[in-house]
C-alpha cells in the first residue's frame, strides 16, 4: 500500500534524508518517499490551516509511480532509486507547474465549505445555485421533509399553469451538480435538530417557507366546510398531507373565497373550470373526481377593501375573466375611485392594469339567465364578522356574516378597511380562507410571532437571547425571511441577498473548522434509521408519475400518499 504523508508545507527539497540513515548524494537530488509526496504534494492541499482529512487522498494522485518498497507504514521513508536519475530541470518544471496546480486545486478543495439548505422550494434551490457558483469549494445539501423536491412549485402552482413549473428544469440542473445533494424525507425538528445541523455544517440556510395559515379569529372558524386555501390547493395538487381532505363539493352550489390575491383566484378558477379542461392537467386524481361531481356553480371572491386594493395581478385576472361561459359580476358602484385610490394607482402599474381589467369586466358582460351557467362574483368592501352554522346540519357552515366597510387612511398613509356597522349575509356551503400563509417556528430558532418570520438582517438570523447578535452560520431565505409574499422570481433576488451576506461573513472570518458535512448527515440519519430520499429516488417518482400520466393524457399522475411515494423510491 502506498504510504501517505499528510503534511508538507515546504518546497520540494533537493536533498532528502531517509529515516534509516543519512544518504549522501552525489546526484543533483534524491527523492525519498517523503520527497516524492512533497513533490506531488503540490497536487494536494498544503495550507497549514487544514487538518488531516478523514480520507487522505491516495498516493495514486501523485504523478510519480508508487514506491518500490511494499513495507507499508506511513512512516517508512524509502529511497526511490529510480528518482535519482531525474534531472533538475524536470524537477523545477514540475514544481513550478505543480505549484500552479496547487493554487487552483487548493482553492477548490481546502475550502470544503459545508452548507445545508433546509427546504427545496425556489428559495432553497436559488440559494443552493448561488452558493455553488460563488464558492467553488462549497458542498451544498438540500433537505426537505417531503420525498419530493421543489416545494410550492410542485404543490402550490395551479395545475392549469404548467409553464410556471418549467423552472423545475433549472432546479434539477442544480440538484445534478456534483457538489449538491438532495435529501428528501428529512424533517427539521424530528429527523434532525437545528443544533445538530449547525454542528455538522458551516452554514445552515433555512428556507422552509410557510406551512401554516393566518387565522381570522372570528366565531365559527372551526365549522366543517371552512378550509384554508392552502389546504385546498395542497389537496388538488396531490400533497401527501392532504389527500384525505375530502372537501364537500356536493351539498352546496355556492363557495365563498375570502381574499382576492392570486391564490384566491386560483382556487376560484379551479372550482369554476370545466372538469374536462382540468382532466388534461396534472391535477390530483381524487380532486378531479370530486370536481367532476361538484355541484358548485357560484363563487364569491370577497375582499375587505376595494378593486384598487385587490391583491391579484393582471395575468391571473385576465385568465379567470376569460373562462368560457362564465358570468362575471362586478358592481359598478364598487368601481368608483377616490382621490386616495388615484394616488395609490399613480406609480403602480399592476394596480392600474388590474383596475382597468375589473372595470372592463363590469361593463362588458350581461347576465345570462341560462341555468347551470357558472357565476363569479367579485365582492368588495365586506369584512367577515362570523361564520354561520347550519340549522339542519349542526357543525357545518352555511353562510358568512359580513360587515360592510369603508376606506380610511391610517397613520402610515395606507388605506385600511373600517367597519360601518351595516351587515350582510351571503349563503354558502364551502368557505376557503385565502388571507395569507404563516411560517412555523421550531425549537431553538428565534421567531417573530407578530410578523410570522425569523428575525433577520439581510438573511442573517438575529439571536433573540444574545442581545441582537447575529446567530453564527445561520441564515434564512424566502418566505421564512421576508413573509409569504411575492412570486417565484422574488426568491432569486432574495437568495442573492442571503448568499451575499454568507459570502461576506465567510471572508471576514475564514472558515477553519472542520465539519462533517454530508458524511455527518448521512451517518446521523442512518443511525436514526431514517430512510432519506435522494434526487435519483425522486427521479423514479417523476418517471412513474409521467408514465401513468401519459396513459391518461395528463402530463403526470401525481402520487398523492406517503406510502405510494416512498414505495416507488424503494424500487
Amino acid at each position, binding site marked *: 500500500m502506498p504510504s501517505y504523508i499528510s503534511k508538507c508545507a515546504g518546497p520540494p527539497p533537493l536533498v532528502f534524508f531517509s529515516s534509516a540513515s543519512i544518504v549522501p548524494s552525489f546526484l543533483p537530488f534524491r527523492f525519498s518517499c517523503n520527497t516524492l509526496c512533497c513533490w506531488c504534494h503540490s*497536487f494536494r492541499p498544503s495550507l497549514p490551516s487544514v487538518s488531516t482529512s478523514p480520507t487522505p487522498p491516495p498516493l495514486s*494522485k*501523485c*504523478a*510519480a*509511480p508508487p514506491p518500490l518498497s511494499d513495507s507499508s507504514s506511513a512512516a517508512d521513508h524509502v529511497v526511490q532509486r*529510480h528518482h535519482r*536519475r531525474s534531472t533538475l530541470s*524536470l524537477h523545477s518544471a*514540475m514544481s513550478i*507547474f505543480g505549484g500552479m*496546480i496547487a493554487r*487552483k*486545486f487548493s*482553492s*477548490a*478543495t481546502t475550502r470544503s465549505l459545508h452548507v445545508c439548505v433546509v427546504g427545496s422550494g425556489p428559495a432553497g434551490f436559488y440559494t443552493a445555485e448561488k452558493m455553488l457558483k*460563488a464558492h*467553488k469549494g462549497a458542498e451544498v445539501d438540500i433537505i426537505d421533509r417531503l420525498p419530493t423536491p421543489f416545494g410550492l412549485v410542485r404543490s402550490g402552482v395551479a395545475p392549469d*399553469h404548467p*409553464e*410556471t413549473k*418549467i*423552472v423545475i*428544469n*433549472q432546479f434539477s440542473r442544480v440538484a445534478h451538480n456534483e457538489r449538491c445533494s438532495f435529501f428528501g424525507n428529512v424533517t427539521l425538528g424530528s429527523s434532525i435538530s437545528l443544533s445538530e445541523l449547525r454542528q455538522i455544517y458551516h452554514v445552515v440556510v433555512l428556507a422552509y417557507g410557510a406551512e401554516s395559515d393566518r387565522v381570522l379569529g372570528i366565531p365559527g372558524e372551526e365549522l366543517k366546510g371552512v378550509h384554508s386555501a392552502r389546504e385546498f390547493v395542497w389537496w388538488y395538487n396531490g400533497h401527501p398531507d392532504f389527500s384525505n381532505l375530502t372537501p364537500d363539493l356536493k351539498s352546496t352550489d355556492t363557495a365563498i373565497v375570502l381574499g382576492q390575491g392570486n391564490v384566491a383566484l386560483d382556487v376560484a378558477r379551479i372550482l369554476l373550470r370545466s372538469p374536462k379542461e382540468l382532466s388534461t392537467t396534472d391535477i390530483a386524481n381524487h380532486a378531479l373526481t370530486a370536481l367532476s361531481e361538484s355541484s358548485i356553480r357560484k363563487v364569491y371572491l370577497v375582499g375587505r377593501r376595494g378593486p384598487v386594493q385587490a391583491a391579484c*395581478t*393582471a*395575468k391571473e385576472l*385576465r385568465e379567470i375573466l376569460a373562462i368560457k361561459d362564465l358570468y362575471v359580476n362586478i358592481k359598478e358602484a364598487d368601481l368608483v375611485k377616490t382621490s386616495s385610490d388615484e394616488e395609490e394607482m399613480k*406609480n403602480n*402599474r*399592476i394596480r392600474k*392594469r388590474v383596475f382597468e381589467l375589473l372595470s372592463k369586466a363590469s361593463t362588458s358582460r350581461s347576465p345570462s339567465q341560462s341555468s347551470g351557467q357558472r357565476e363569479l362574483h367579485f365582492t368588495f368592501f365586506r369584512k367577515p364578522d362570523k361564520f354561520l352554522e347550519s340549522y339542519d346540519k349542526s357543525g357545518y357552515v352555511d353562510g358568512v356574516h359580513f360587515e360592510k366597510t369603508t376606506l380610511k387612511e391610517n397613520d402610515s398613509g395606507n388605506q385600511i378597511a373600517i367597519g360601518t356597522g351595516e351587515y350582510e349575509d351571503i349563503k354558502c356551503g364551502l368557505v376557503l380562507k385565502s388571507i395569507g400563509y404563516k411560517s412555523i417556528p421550531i425549537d431553538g430558532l428565534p421567531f417573530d410571532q407578530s410578523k410570522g418570520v425569523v428575525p433577520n438582517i439581510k438573511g442573517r438570523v438575529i439571536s433573540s437571547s444574545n442581545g441582537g447578535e447575529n446567530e453564527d452560520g445561520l441564515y434564512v431565505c424566502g418566505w421564512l425571511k421576508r413573509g409569504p409574499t411575492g*412570486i*417565484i*422570481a*422574488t426568491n*432569486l*433576488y432574495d437568495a442573492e441577498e442571503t448568499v451575499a451576506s454568507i459570502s461576506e461573513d465567510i471572508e471576514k472570518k475564514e472558515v477553519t473548522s472542520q465539519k462533517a458535512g454530508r458524511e455527518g448527515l448521512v451517518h446521523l440519519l442512518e443511525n436514526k434509521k431514517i430512510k432519506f430520499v435522494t434526487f435519483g429516488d425522486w427521479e423514479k417518482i417523476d418517471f412513474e408519475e409521467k408514465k401513468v400520466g401519459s396513459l391518461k393524457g395528463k402530463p403526470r399522475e401525481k402520487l398523492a400518499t406517503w406510502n405510494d411515494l416512498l414505495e416507488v423510491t424503494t424500487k
Partner: protein
Amino acid sequence: MFISKLSRLGAQASKALSKAPLTIPSRRSFFPIVQNDSLDASSRKLFSTTTSQEENEDKQKISVTFFDKDGEQEIKVPIGMSMLEAAHENDIELEGACEGSLACSTSHVIVMDVEQYNKLEDPTDEENDMLDLAFGLTETYRLGCQVIAKPELDGLRLALPAATRNFVVEGYKPKPH
C-alpha cells in the same frame, strides 16, 4: 527506460490534472465569442462568387452587446433568435426560469437606448403582465425572451438588471420605481 518513465509520469500528471477541479478565475472575463456559423460563413466566402451572397450572410446576424456588472460582451445574434436564447448560447447569465414561455419575468433586460427601444414591437398584454412583476421596473424594460433579432436592431445594447442594482450603467439613468 528513463523515457518510458518520463512518459508515464507525464501521463499520470495529465490524468491527475484532468481530475483536479481546476478553477478558472471566478470573475468572469468577457471575450467576444465568434460563432461557429460565422466561421463557416467566412469559409464559404472563399468560394462564393457573388458579393450579394456575402451581404446576405452578414445581414443574417446582428451585433448585440450585453452589459452586466462585470463588464460588457458583444455577441452576434442570428435574425429570428431571441435575446434569451442568444445569451444562453454565449454563456451570458440571463435568467430564464420559464424558458421563454411568458410565465415569468426573470429574463428582463434594459434596452439602453430609447431609439432602439422604440424600434421594438410593442409588448403584448401577456408580456406586459409579466413586466409588471419585474424587479426594478423602468421605462425601457423588455423580456429578453420576447426581443427577437431583426436587422434594424443591429448594435442593440442591453443591460442585465444586475448591472443596475448596485452600479450605474454609463449613460443610463434608472427611473424611480
